[in-house]
């Protein structure tokens, strides 16, 4: 008898507790910066595409939702001719981000991607490419890479030594 009254009282006290329900569309939830949501392609600090179309993301993708075609500009710098992510397949596992050697492909805290038409879930490069640098500010792949792509001269990068003249014995 006492336990019944007690449980009624305890239930009554729940009326003053904090609500478990979040008023979602009005009150947005907090998403941590590392939240794996919509995928974007970022640019380097100079405003050029980071992606070098190495296909590692497409290879890492467990559901094969990434498709891209590599091409080169007039300086020989590789970039994707098209870059297509089918978000109706994507499982937001983040393996593409882990595979990316240039920090080009990144997952951001945004999940509001619902569409009425399934075809609209296929994002092309113009939908994926953003103007900013995403999570890694100041990173430029060609600043640490060995090749000279007009960003820095050969052997002038960080942790890099000047090239050795193999024909000269004195060094």
């Amino acid at each position, binding site marked *: 008898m006492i336990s019944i009254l007690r449980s009624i009282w*305890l239930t009554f006290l*729940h009326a003053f507790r904090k609500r478990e329900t979040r008023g979602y569309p009005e009150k947005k939830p907090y998403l941590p910066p590392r939240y794996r949501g919509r995928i974007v392609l970022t640019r380097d600090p100079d405003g050029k595409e980071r992606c070098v179309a190495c296909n590692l993301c497409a290879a890492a993708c467990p559901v094969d939702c990434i498709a891209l075609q590599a091409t080169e500009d007039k300086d020989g710098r590789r970039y994707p001719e098209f870059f297509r992510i089918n978000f109706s397949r994507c499982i937001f596992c983040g393996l593409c981000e882990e595979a990316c050697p240039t920090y080009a492909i990144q997952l951001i805290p945004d999940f509001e991607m619902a569409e009425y038409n399934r075809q609209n879930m296929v994002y092309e490069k113009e939908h994926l490419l953003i103007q900013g640098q995403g999570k890694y500010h100041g990173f430029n792949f060609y600043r640490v890479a060995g090749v000279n792509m007009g960003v820095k001269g050969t052997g002038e990068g960080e942790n890099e030594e000047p090239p050795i003249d193999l024909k000269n014995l004195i060094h």
Partner: protein
Amino acid sequence: MKYFFIIAGVLLIVLTIAAGLIYVERRLLALFQDRQGPNRVGPFGLLQVLADVIKIFFKEDWTPPFADKAVFIIAPGILMGSILLTFAVIPFTDQFLVLDSNIGLLFFLGNSSLGVYSIVLGGWASNNKYSLIGSIRASAQMLTYEVFMGLSLVGVVMTADSFSLREIVEAQRGGWFFIPQFVGFVIFFIAGLAETHRTPFDIPEAEGELVAGFHSEYSGMKFGMFFVGEYMGVTLISALITTLFFGGWLGPSFLPPAFWFFLKTAFFICLFILIRASLPRPRYDQLMETGWKILLPLVLLNILLTGAILIYKQA
């Protein structure tokens, strides 16, 4: 002409409250369960009732081919009818009551017993084993609880010396009956819960075991009548508790009497919902056992004591 207005007023108030309880119950249950409840339709979700009613009216009103058609259709009507009739004897205030009958309380008890037919016949006519089990449970539960529902009111009748609900309220001018008749109040409350098939006594419809019990086969507005009938029953029992034990419309005079009546009734309706939110459904045999072995002797003892005290006072 005055009669017509009172009857129309009572009908309007009762049906509005019963329909409004659909919203109130969901909102309050949510409150007790740390949720928000319906808050999308209209301001604070108040138009939820309207949306629900529109939905239920447009649902297919299906009568199963294996059902006993006539009885199947009549059953929900009996429930609504018996409960609505009882509101005729409820004194909302001194003036605002349809029928000041000198057998008001008996009228209520008779009608509440008639209400059982609705459930028994509904389950029987559905021709479905779960519905039938539900209605058998309902009839056994009613047999148990009708007995001491009636007996728990005997103390009140003895103290007030009248079966008229208006006179019972008048008799409480000196002090509300829930103090001298506390046992009667508690037992009437429990019996009222059982009477309206509210959790924890919703054994006839026990959705975990019997699909939906006696109204498994009902759909559309026929189900809606069972649904609203339940809320009307809650309103009725709350109004009766107010009338019999908590002084009806009596209260400090800075508010109109009708307001006091509705305030007290609303309190008991909320208590019904709170109990639904907190207590689990007992097993069937536990229910019968508490009914016959604990509550019945208690209520008889209450009558004995009340009688003894009355005789002592007279002497």
